[in-house]
């Protein structure tokens, strides 16, 4: 999958906070989210590092794969001692791409058989999470 580039934006933190309804400054970097994340080992920035980067308006977080690997399983959300919904922050970051129609997944290359073998909920969910 070719990752499409998104033009840098000003006020990254504010934009993601508004889209997600979350306050990234509530995070005190305890690392609970990363220790319980089932997909953290696949991420090039750990979940807590994603929040840290957002706190500093650090654009590298937008080029990391974390937001695309996150499956919104909410293991972090139920465990965060500060009540931050990190999955919502990931959704906010994805929305910055998707609202510019920079899709991250396409089923064009899949055969009819491959598509038919997948439960509908997989296809619809993937397209909802990764296309605009």
């Amino acid at each position, binding site marked *: *999958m070719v990752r499409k580039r998104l033009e840098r934006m000003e006020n990254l933190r504010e934009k993601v906070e*508004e*889209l*997600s*309804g979350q306050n990234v400054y509530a995070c005190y970097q305890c690392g609970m989210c990363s220790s319980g994340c*089932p*997909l953290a080992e*696949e991420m090039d920035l750990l979940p807590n590092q994603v929040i840290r980067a957002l706190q500093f308006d650090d654009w590298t977080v937008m080029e990391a794969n974390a937001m695309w*690997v996150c*499956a*919104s*399983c*909410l*293991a972090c*959300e*139920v465990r965060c001692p500060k009540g931050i*919904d990190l*999955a*919502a922050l*990931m*959704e*906010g970051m994805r*929305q910055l791409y998707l609202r510019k129609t920079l899709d*991250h*997944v396409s*089923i064009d290359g899949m055969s009819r058989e491959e598509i038919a*073998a*997948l*439960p*509908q*909920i*997989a*296809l*619809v*969910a*993937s*397209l*909802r*999470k*990764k296309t605009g």
Partner: protein
Amino acid sequence: MKGIAYFPGCSLKDTAKDFETSARAVMEALGLPLVELERWNCCGTVYSLAADDLMHQLASMRDLIRTQEMGEPEVVAACAMCYNTLKRVSLRVNADVEARDKMNAFMNKETDYEGSIEVRHLLEILRDRIGWERVSERVTQPLDGLAVAPYYGCTLVRPREAGIDDPDAPTVMRDLIEALGATAVPFPFATECCGSYQVVDRRDLVIERSDRVVRSARRAHAQVIVTSCPLCQHNLEQAQQELGGETIPVLYFTQLVAAAFGVEAGELPAAITARPAAAGETGRGN
């Protein structure tokens, strides 16, 4: 109405037909048949987590309108993903009048949604409406000696406000398994994500995650895994097919209930039909 308004969802009509067949058979046997919503549509499968995004919640609200049109106070889903999406949308639009008004105005050809429909999962109905005692009484083929791992995954228990049980230590499926005479085996990955919809473009990652879940259940000596999610079921089966070796069947909880009730609901794996205990029952011949 005799019965309960029921939202099947897309997967139960296609890749997860066994789930629907067994759910209907079991509820019929318990005297609370599932009555399918008329003109239901896909719930959207995931609740949009973007704060301003009402557009992606419309599909689920339409299903709540369909329920309201039937004159029913609640709707039940068996698919955990549908349940979660419908539930979260209902929590939002039942409480947030401004969002509801906006969505009603947008769907100007629909009846207005009044904000009162409750969304339930089928396991909640079994636990809270029917009760384990009545479930137990209906059992004709007790699953004695069968070790079953209850796999909850994500959407049944998270987030806390939408979950049907404790997000870290759920017990609802354990209690169901025991009501059927089987043995529930606890295992550490019971509420870990299988990788979900990432199977579409990150199959590698999902196979690896799902394999961990299956191995965890196998180490606990489970003979069967039960789930309430067609996507979990798919992913856990795929991981076993792809990696080979010894496999354990992944069933919907309703299939296990159907087996214990002795009601016809499609094929069951040998782990259940060819159990020594099951053979013993046949042997007694009655």
